């Protein structure tokens, strides 16, 4: 039992924190957000040069062969800096998915390019409700809704219901005929896209179904998302504490008011419980026992999601009107925490999944 990070991990964390502090300031981020694409390919190349695009890729394919703990360190720092680039989908989920679902040849072709930042690969999984994506004679038809960073993709990995009854995973080129991406900003300043496929050419990657591989890759993404949330909440709680120490009302710093002190204590309780579950999620997210993995990840998402909500709402509340202004980074943390709570299954979804498991266990016993 040991909760310390090793030297390599600390060096990695330092690198990323330095990058955010120096090269990804709030002003820089604002300029990127307000640019037409809403993210920066240049920054992506800097991330590649720092090596962080390679951490989830095996050494055989030009990667660093790190795991969820290192990913969590990086995500925490990017969280506090509110990175707009497609790190979670492109550098965490995509490599995990390619490794699990695709052939050795495909891995050899694409993983090195992911590591160098040359190619951004994005998973499009959730179907639009009214038009699920299906394979029709080797091509794809249907729509995917709110694909995170779909517009950043050089290559899309698209799940589809296949003629063989399985969920297949297909490589789709964004520029191809029959592929339409509608790219837009989301509430939290990130980008997403709706993807319409109209008899679009596609190459099937999986042999014998990709649902398990997709779920496994998404779970690795979920653990990374939890770490991102903890990074944001760390920053949010620290900024709110600082605000309470300096902001004067009724002749004293408002941090002297006991009701606000207790609120801050409650925020810290949420944060520390979320941090604990983020560690547990990192440990368990690559577990091959899917039931055990899901139990941990649902517990983690519930804890983290509730913390996101509590901390975001109260940080704004304790900042008063200032917390609602676009000019303070706090309001942007608020929106990202709000979006995280609703992503990868919201709190209700995971609480219900965990609870349903209790009922099943009881019936089995």
């Amino acid at each position: 039992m040991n909760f310390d990070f090793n030297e390599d991990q600390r060096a990695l964390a330092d690198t990323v924190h330095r990058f955010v502090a120096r090269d990804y300031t709030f002003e820089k981020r604002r300029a990127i957000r307000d640019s037409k694409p809403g993210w920066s390919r240049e920054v992506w190349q800097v991330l590649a040069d720092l090596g962080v695009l390679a951490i989830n890729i095996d050494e055989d394919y030009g990667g660093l062969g790190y795991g969820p703990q290192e990913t969590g360190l990086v995500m925490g720092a990017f969280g506090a800096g509110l990175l707009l680039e497609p790190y979670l989908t492109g550098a965490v989920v995509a490599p995990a998915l390619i490794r699990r679902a695709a052939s050795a040849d495909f891995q050899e072709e694409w993983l090195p390019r992911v590591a160098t930042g040359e190619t951004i690969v994005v998973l499009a999984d959730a179907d639009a409700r009214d038009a699920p994506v299906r394979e029709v004679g080797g091509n794809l038809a249907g729509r995917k809704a709110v694909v995170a960073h779909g517009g950043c993709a050089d290559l899309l990995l698209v799940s589809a219901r296949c003629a063989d009854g399985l969920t297949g995973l297909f490589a789709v080129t964004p520029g191809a005929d029959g592929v339409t991406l509608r790219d837009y900003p989301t509430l939290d300043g990130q980008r997403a896209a709706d993807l319409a496929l109209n008899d679009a050419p596609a190459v099937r990657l999986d042999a014998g179904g990709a649902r398990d591989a997709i779920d496994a890759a998404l779970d690795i993404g979920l653990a990374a998302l939890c770490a991102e949330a903890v990074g944001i909440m760390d920053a949010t709680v620290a900024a709110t504490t600082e605000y309470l120490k300096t902001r004067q009302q009724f002749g004293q710093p408002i941090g002297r008011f006991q009701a606000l002190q207790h609120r801050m204590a409650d925020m810290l309780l949420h944060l520390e419980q979320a941090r604990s579950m983020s560690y547990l999620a990192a440990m368990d997210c690559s577990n091959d026992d899917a039931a055990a993995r899901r139990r941990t990840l649902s517990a983690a998402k519930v804890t983290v999601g509730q913390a996101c909500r509590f901390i975001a709402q109260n940080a704004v509340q304790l900042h008063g009107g200032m917390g609602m202004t676009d000019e303070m980074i706090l309001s942007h943390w608020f929106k990202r925490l709000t979006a995280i709570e609703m992503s990868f299954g919201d709190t209700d979804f995971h609480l219900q999944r965990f609870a349903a498991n209790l009922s099943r266990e009881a019936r089995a016993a």
Partner: protein
Amino acid sequence: MDLSFSPEENTFREEVRRFVAEKLPDAIRHKVMNGVHLSREEHVQWQRALHGRGWGGVGWPREFGGPGWTPTEQYIFEEECAAAGAPRLISFGLKMIAPVLMAFGSPAQQQRFLPKIMSAEEWWCQGYSEPGAGSDLASVKTRAIREGDHYVVNGQKTWTTLGQYADWIFCLVRTDPEAKKQSGISFLLIDMKSPGVTVRPIITLDGAHEVNEVWLEDVRVPLENRVGEENKGWTYAKFLLGHERTNIAGIGIAKRELARLKRIAAAEGRLDQPLFAAKVAQVEIDLMALEITNLRVLSAEREHKAPGPEASILKIKGTEIQQTISELMMQAVGACALPFKQAGVGPDYAANLGTGYCNLRKLSIFGGSNEIQKNIISQMIMGL
């Protein structure tokens, strides 16, 4: 005890309902029903319609041209308007400065200002909050120095809601810097077109421009635009804050939004999910209870008591309920709430739910934060 409305009150409700059904333009109704911000013109259009019916002075006594309703009638009026998707009344003129002018203004001020509030010819905004003051309203820093028949005003106001539309601003200013905090404050009416008045937008987290900073640099204000006595402004300010709290619970709006939540949740199949359905049930139950609590407070007011500290109960629960509803609407549509100001992504009703949730965080902050309201409850009602 009788919890039903009287036959007269029910008739009145029908009358309001008919009027709104006839006179409220569909375009406005549609915006309100879907949480879209209204333009200045749309607000004015509705206020003029009310004025045309003799209902321009909501909450005003007959002697000043108001309809002279009882608190219950006013409650019914606002509930019906909200339910039908009418714009929220612009309260800065009608409900804030007007009662102050009626109680403390000179006859000249009353004649000059009140009719144009009713007819929406002049739009008012508030100049209470200052940067750094927050809940501590009495720590006014804006200075007014008397020069002959004018005050010269310098300072900065903030959180001025819809100040970009305003013709006039009512301001707390410090006229005696030597006096203790609450003393030495005066209450001025300032023409927004005066030289030295600058309005700068504050963009909020939902991307909206609803609030502003108002900078006052050597603004000359005639003495006749001071309300009441010099250095007694805090008295009028407190009176205004008391009146700000009528209809503070927002029952009508909450009912309309609850109905919207139920429509959205049903369309998304969320009412078949027990945890989500229970949350909708909980907020509906809370609102049922708050409606009765609100009517109890109104009933006490009818016996000629001003809104008391009980209004703090209405403020806290009312804002919590509205915030919860906005949060549940957002959760109901899940990922479809994420696209930012994108029509046509996901179902139509999803487009404003994320920004709506963000926007309503203000409810527990502005108008006396809910923490301040709990201080009032524990200290003024419970005597702690």
